[in-house]
């Protein structure tokens, strides 16, 4: 392997000390002092037509500068999804509409001198609604005769994909390989299961926040907490009907996104206010608005059928799933498509069937969220794998190993499923899944796992595994670009469109550039994501920045390195290809060298007879190749002193999910704000903070009961207590686990426990103490192994 000097080494994250010293780096820190503040009027109804809206009184209130509503803004249909153009999401949204489609939909917005004045004016807006029947579940939404959520004539898809708003179908994608039904019949063992995953919210610690002002030329400068600055510029131009050149989008430091900020929601409103008032305008969501009126992970309902042969090979795999898109179709198609394309290829199966649909309902809106659809179906498919192994009497690890795709292989799914079009033929270039499983099994002590039925005693420990696959970058669609120039002192400016949202991409890209031109990483001055000065990049999504933008940086740095070598060669009178760049120097063939800077003879300042080389400037754009990552989360299910911890990182956060309460009382459709924690795409817990400690205790007992779960063989007392807690905390799951129709002795409770642990984002100290105490108890029990 190539020896690296800068990459593959640990370096200090280039912005981390500034962050640690609390420098003003976020949108809230950068807003002009005299900004106006925005507050929005949110719909109190799940589905209603706005008969009239009267802002006359509100407009007269003190401090109010401007009020926007459907009656005074252009009606431009668009999607809020920050995706490559033309977007694969339906055009079904307006800046403001004459209809509201969920509790928390935007009705009007006020800009005033202070947030309090804006809030008071919002209260003074008089709206007459005509309530319409609403739907809340996937099944109800797709029933014939269901209320139509998008009955406006403008709703359409910009690319030719299935879209039937008249029956609330926001998206549909399907594929078939071979005759699944026949293989299911012919299989030695057949399994047919349904799974459901719930809402979850991204919970970035910094909520959505935007500031906009006009510069001296009347251009709108939008400073925003976004993952997709270039998509923001395009969509703001589209919605406000002004040319792209009149907009500049700046991304400062971002307090986390996790997909939630791959959405262009607040920016057009704030930009419109800036244009109308000529003032700086600022809008920050409250934490409650963040939950209700931003985006969520799509809940998904799936039916999975699988057929296996006695020898353990999978002969049929069928996935029929439908996501609840909520009131708008942002990312509807691509998320559900990834539910198939990012998980089905992981397992070799002779026949494959996939149908993914997305239904409009009168609930908060789904969007991009880490994993992007793969998370949801991974939950179902992985539970199935455990069950299938169990039914065959096979070790689940061995069963997976046998059926997992390997290096050099391909899957028909790659070609069949793209994002809104056919996919791209791909084969697995390298895949260390087998090694990964082996290592994981060794580290975790898989051999000690044993049969759950044989475990005895009050406290038990279990080991589980999950395997999953992700893709990165969208082949032939995504792109990144970089510009690089050398300065007189041998430092380099690296301008990238790539969007560091806390991921560290600025540092990674600096490392790649430094490695390529042979300098230290601190010689790189990185500036990212400013639509005026940095080149285009799709933004921070699909885990693609290192691969995609990184390749652009590598290419641009190679061009600069070539120029440096040229000058170095001229200085040392040798051939450019004899030059070796490292340690901030150009080395010649005879051991001579010149430094990039530092003395008068340095390369960066050298004036020689070499035409055009003194620019040291290059630009490179990169269109993505296909990248596929497969990896194994072997630690995810290990319940031990450390076991619960790794999984916590993804689900941590404030009240992580909140679930709409469907169809009950006058509040139907309202998202209920409770202390509710929600697993990434698995199960949601609902409890008050006061209950948290006792539930955690019971859960940990449950955990130590290991795979026995709800069918525990130990004392009836424990069983009852666990069942009660489980039922209270996980209503859906508990009933699945107990249902006679789903005779799932070990895996369901097991998945439940993993999910539970993952979701237990207890406050630090308590979690620690409880875990410690319970581990001691577990250690005391003699049946740990």
């Amino acid at each position, binding site marked *: 392997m190539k020896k690296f000097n800068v990459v593959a080494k*640990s370096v*200090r*994250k280039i*912005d*981390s*000390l*500034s*962050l*640690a*010293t*609390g*420098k*003003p*780096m*976020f949108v*809230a*820190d950068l807003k002009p002092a005299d900004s106006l503040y925005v507050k929005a009027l949110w719909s109190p109804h799940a589905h209603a037509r706005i008969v009239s809206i009267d802002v006359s009184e509100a407009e007269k209130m003190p401090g109010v500068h401007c009020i926007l509503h459907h009656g005074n803004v252009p009606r431009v249909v668009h999607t809020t999804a920050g995706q490559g153009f033309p977007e694969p999401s339906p055009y079904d949204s307006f800046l403001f509409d004459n209809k509201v489609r969920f509790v928390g939909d935007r009705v009007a917005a006020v800009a005033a001198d202070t947030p309090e004045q804006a809030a008071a004016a919002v209260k003074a807006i008089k709206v007459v609604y005509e309530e319409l029947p609403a739907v809340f579940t996937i099944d109800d939404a797709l029933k014939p005769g269901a209320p139509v959520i998008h009955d406006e004539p403008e709703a359409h898809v910009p690319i030719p994909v299935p879209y039937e708003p008249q029956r609330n179908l926001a998206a549909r994608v399907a594929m078939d390989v071979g005759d699944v039904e026949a293989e299911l019949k012919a299989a030695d063992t057949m399994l047919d299961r349904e799974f459901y995953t719930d809402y979850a919210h991204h*919970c*970035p*610690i*910094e*909520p959505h926040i935007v500031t906009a002002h006009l510069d001296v030329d009347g251009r709108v400068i939008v400073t925003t907490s976004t993952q997709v600055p270039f998509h923001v510029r395009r969509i703001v131009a589209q919605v406000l009907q002004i040319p792209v050149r009149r907009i500049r989008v700046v991304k400062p*430091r*971002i*307090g*986390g996104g*996790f997909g939630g900020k791959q959405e262009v929601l607040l920016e057009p409103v704030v930009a419109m206010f800036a244009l109308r008032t000529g003032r700086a305008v600022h809008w920050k969501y*409250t*934490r409650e608005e963040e939950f209700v009126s931003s985006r969520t992970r799509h809940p998904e309902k799936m039916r999975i059928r699988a057929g296996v042969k006695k020898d353990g090979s999978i002969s049929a795999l069928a996935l029929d799933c439908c996501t609840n898109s909520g009131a708008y179709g942002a990312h509807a198609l691509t998320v559900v498509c990834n539910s198939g394309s990012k998980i089905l290829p992981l397992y070799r199966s002779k026949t494959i069937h996939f149908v993914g649909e997305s239904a409009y309902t009168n609930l908060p809106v789904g969007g991009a969220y880490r994993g992007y659809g793969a998370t949801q179906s991974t939950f179902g498919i992985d539970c199935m794998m455990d069950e299938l192994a169990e039914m065959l009497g096979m070790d689940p690890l061995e069963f997976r190993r046998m059926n997992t795709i390997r290096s050099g292989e391909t899957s028909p799914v790659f070609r069949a499923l793209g994002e809104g079009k056919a996919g791209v033929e791909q084969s697995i270039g390298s895949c260390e899944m087998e090694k990964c499983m082996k290592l994981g099994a060794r580290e975790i002590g898989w051999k000690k796992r044993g049969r759950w039925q044989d475990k005895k005693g009050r406290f038990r420990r279990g080991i589980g595994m999950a395997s999953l696959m992700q893709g990165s970058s969208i082949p032939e669609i995504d792109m990144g670009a970089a510009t690089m120039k050398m300065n007189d002192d041998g430092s380099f400016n690296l301008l990238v469109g790539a969007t560091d*949202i*806390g*991921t*560290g991409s600025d540092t990674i890209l600096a490392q790649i550039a430094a490695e390529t031109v042979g300098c230290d990483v601190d010689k790189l001055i990185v500036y990212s994501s400013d639509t005026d000065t940095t080149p285009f990049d799709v933004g921070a999504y699909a885990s693609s920045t290192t691969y995609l933008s990184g390749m652009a940086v590598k290419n641009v740095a190679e061009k600069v390195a070539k120029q440096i070598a040229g000058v170095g060669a001229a200085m040392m009178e040798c051939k450019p290809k004899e030059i070796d760049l490292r340690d901030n120097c150009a080395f010649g063939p005879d051991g001579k060298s010149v430094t990039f800077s530092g003395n008068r003879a340095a390369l960066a300042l050298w004036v020689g007879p070499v035409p055009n080389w003194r620019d040291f400037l290059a630009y490179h754009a990169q269109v993505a190749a296909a990248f596929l990552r497969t990896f194994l989360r072997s630690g995810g299910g290990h319940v031990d002193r450390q076991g619960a*911890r*790794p999984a*916590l*990182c*993804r689900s*941590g*956060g*404030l*009240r992580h999910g909140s679930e709409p309460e469907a169809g009950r009382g006058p509040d139907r459709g309202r998202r209920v704000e409770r202390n509710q924690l929600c697993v990434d795409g698995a199960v949601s817990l609902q409890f008050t903070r006061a209950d948290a400690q006792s539930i955690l205790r019971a859960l940990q007992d449950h955990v130590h009961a290991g795979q026995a779960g709800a069918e525990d063989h130990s004392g009836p007392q424990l069983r009852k207590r666990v069942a009660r807690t489980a039922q209270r905390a996980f209503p859906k799951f508990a009933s699945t686990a107990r249902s006679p129709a789903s005779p799932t002795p070990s895996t369901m409770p097991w998945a439940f426990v993993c999910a539970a642990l993952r979701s237990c984002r207890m*406050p*630090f*100290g*308590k*979690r*620690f*103490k409880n875990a*410690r105490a319970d581990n001691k108890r577990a250690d005391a029990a003699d049946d740990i192994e």
Partner: protein
Amino acid sequence: MNIQFTLNGKLRTAEVEANTKLADLLRELGCASVKIGCNEGACGSCAVNVDGRLINSCLTYAGQVNGRTVETVEAIGSLDHPHPIQDALVEEGAIQCGYCMPGVILAAKALFDKNPSPTEEELAVALDGQLCRCTGYQKIESALRKLASEARS
């Protein structure tokens, strides 16, 4: 009402309303390190030290600090002379988006000031109220653990 308090070593006076939150006042006075993540006491990103005790400034009225001493991250370290806690977190790679960090750093400092070599458990309790969405906490913990064990040896 008029209040007077010591902010990062300097005596400050401010005219505040009865319902002005400390977090808003501090930000107005130029302390950009005071982050507001939830404005309801849940996340700890607005935490500051008042008379050496960690409090959530979004749940504190400005009037309550009259006559007291308030410390924010601005005062405890700079780019050239970072506080050992800041240095440890940077070195360990514990800072991702960094939005939660001022709170985490002040929580750690409130503890280390009293107890330079806290146990793991004491650390955990001190960081109880600080939510971080990015890191998964492991690196924050290990950075501070290292610092604590350095102090012991």
